[in-house]
């Protein structure tokens, strides 16, 4: 007896495949928005797992999107990362050799050793990447794209692990700030990474993202996260949100759940990043900054933290909103100041946030969908 949700998922994917060819022909402007909706859903649903279901406050989700975008692009463009020569702050072997009277102090040895070890570790990571790239290049069209996406998602998941493990013992405000910090650090790393274009951005990807890919992954994200949460295993996430101490007392490894939520969300953010990169065909580090993270957080809050349907609606709404505002700004009959405010969507956003928190902190959509009176 195949699970009902599985049937729905497969049906969705089939529908999308069929629709994809015809939808590709619609007005490019609307197509853009449509794909954007799909990508936003993936981002929001992933963050909802962390912020909504597990009650952790992550403000750095765009960082994982960036990791996915850049690594997926690197894979499909076949970018090889050159290795470090020697740590920049240490004299090279030749310099040392040419001046035999220079003996290093003991602390200089330690510094040099640490520098060398760090350099080796980083080079090892680069070597792994460089070895995987030709594997991807050998694959045919769509398989290469899928491979790149999964690669981006996988590395993003690793990034989620790296950020999550040390950070997740912090609570509330502190966790928010640390995740924000990591978002900035990821951005700074990209801005200094020459092989992927640094501050100039990275372009040249094929436009391989279409309706099918974007929405199939969106459906997959919803499927995976819904299934996980609505099971005995998944109740652990909610327990962590409701009362960590009680959860621990009930035998639930709260750290594991927090890290798991983080890693899973980061994976999907990475996929979303890869999809984005192969749609817009150009990515830039500033596109993955704090503001983008806030965008995604607003989607989760607007949708009602922990409400899957609400979050999907909110993601679509907030993707479409800037376009609506742009349209409003063009309405000639409105006064100039109204048109200007519509142009500046940040004003509207921030007001939405403030009013929402004051009036309806559970989100716009929470409680609209009457839940069946069965425990999940």
């Amino acid at each position, binding site marked *: 007896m195949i699970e009902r949700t599985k049937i729905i998922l497969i049906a969705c994917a089939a529908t999308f495949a069929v629709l994809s060819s015809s939808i590709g022909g619609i007005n490019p402007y609307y197509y853009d928005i449509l794909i954007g909706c799909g990508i936003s859903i993936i981002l929001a649903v992933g963050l909802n797992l962390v912020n909504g279901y597990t009650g952790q406050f992550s403000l750095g989700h765009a960082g994982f999107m960036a990791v996915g975008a850049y690594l997926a692009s690197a894979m499909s463009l076949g970018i090889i990362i050159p290795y470090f020569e020697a740590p920049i702050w240490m004299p090279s072997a030749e310099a040392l050799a040419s001046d035999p009277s220079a003996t290093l102090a003991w602390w200089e040895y330690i510094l040099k050793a640490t520098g060398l070890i760090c350099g080796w570790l980083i080079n090892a990571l680069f070597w792994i990447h460089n070895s995987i790239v030709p594997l991807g290049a050998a694959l045919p069209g769509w398989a290469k794209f899928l491979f790149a996406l999964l690669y981006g998602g996988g590395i993003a998941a690793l990034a989620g692990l790296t950020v999550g493990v040390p950070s997740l013992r912090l609570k509330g*405000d*502190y966790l928010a*700030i640390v995740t924000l910090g990591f978002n900035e650090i990821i951005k700074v790393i990209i801005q200094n990474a020459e092989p992927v274009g640094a501050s100039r951005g990275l372009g040249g990807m094929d436009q391989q993202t279409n309706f099918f890919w974007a929405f199939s992954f969106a459906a997959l994200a919803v499927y995976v996260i819904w299934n996980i949460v609505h099971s005995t295993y998944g109740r652990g996430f909610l327990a962590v949100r409701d009362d960590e101490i009680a959860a621990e007392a009930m035998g639930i490894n709260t750290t594991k759940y927090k890290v798991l939520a983080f890693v899973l969300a980061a994976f999907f953010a990475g996929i979303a990043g890869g999809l984005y990169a192969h749609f817009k065909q150009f990515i830039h580090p500033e596109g993955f900054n704090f503001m983008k993270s806030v965008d995604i957080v607003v989607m989760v809050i607007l949708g009602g933290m922990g409400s899957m349907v609400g979050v999907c609606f909110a993601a679509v709404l907030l993707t479409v909103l800037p376009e609506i505002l742009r349209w409003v700004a063009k309405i000639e009959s409105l006064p100039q100041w109204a048109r200007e405010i519509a142009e500046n969507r940040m*004003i509207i956003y921030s*007001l939405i946030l*403030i009013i929402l*928190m004051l009036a309806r*902190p559970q989100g716009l959509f929470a409680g609209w969908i009457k839940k069946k009176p069965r425990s999940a």
Partner: protein
Amino acid sequence: MSPQTIEFIQQLINGLSLGAIYALIALGYTMVFGVLRFINFAHGDLYMVGSFAGWMLFAAPEDESKTGVWASLSRSFAAIPPGMTKVLLALMLAMMICAALGILIEWLCYRPLRQRPRITVLITAIGVSLFLESFGQYIWGAAPKSFPTLIEDTAIEIPESWGSIASLTLLKGQIITFCTTLGLLAALTFIVLKTKIGMAMRALALNQTACSLVGVNVNFVVAFTFGLGSALAGAAGILTSIQQPSIDPLMGILPGLKAFVAAVLGGIGNLAGAVLGAFLLGIVETMVVGYISPTYRDAVAFAVLIFILLLRPSGLLGKNIREKV
């Protein structure tokens, strides 16, 4: 003294000057956290408001497009010759405007959420911050503005007879920053330690319920705290603009974040910690820029933040508050 030592002292001076600004902003963060237990994301933008208050009042209206009352006000203020009086006037006015704005924001946006979970208030604070920034861009435009000259920011002449120290550059702006900061710190210490309202602030930081039970007007004390913190941020805005006359509506983001890191470094909720953390951060940042590379200027704060939160989240001077089970 060797040139390296002179260089080091120069960096130290610059670092302390930077740290002073961070200290003024960090105090606001820490005071609000102390009484309300939340991080006011919008605080850094009050620093920006301080600068712009100075610009609105003191920049000659012909330079920029100002209308109505601002035009006439700024015409008269711009006419004042540059000097200490102008500086003090700017400081006072900016501090008053920022204090008022801070109190208004607290009353409108944070007070209704007093009983709600902290995350709700945090998100509201992000909203307020974004609003101030975007609204600022809307009114003043995103392009940087030129802050009017309140005082000639020239270097102090150090007599040659003092030896190699004479090669140090000590700007008037830096001296004013130091002195103003020290003065404000002294005033703040006096208020917190020696006045009734200061005692109320300290009590509120310890136990809000008990305070209201013994008759402390919690709303008033909170408003006062906000006003005080915002005033300090406004002062920081003016002091920075004396040395860096290019201001724009987004200028509060980075200093705000860095001042927050400073507050966390020192132990959030701890006033002395905020000052200590701020000076430390200012010095470290200046040293990194001077000795390693300017590209890492902003990354320093984040690196410090990550380190301190992962190693010692309560900060250098903070106390670890355990949750009662």
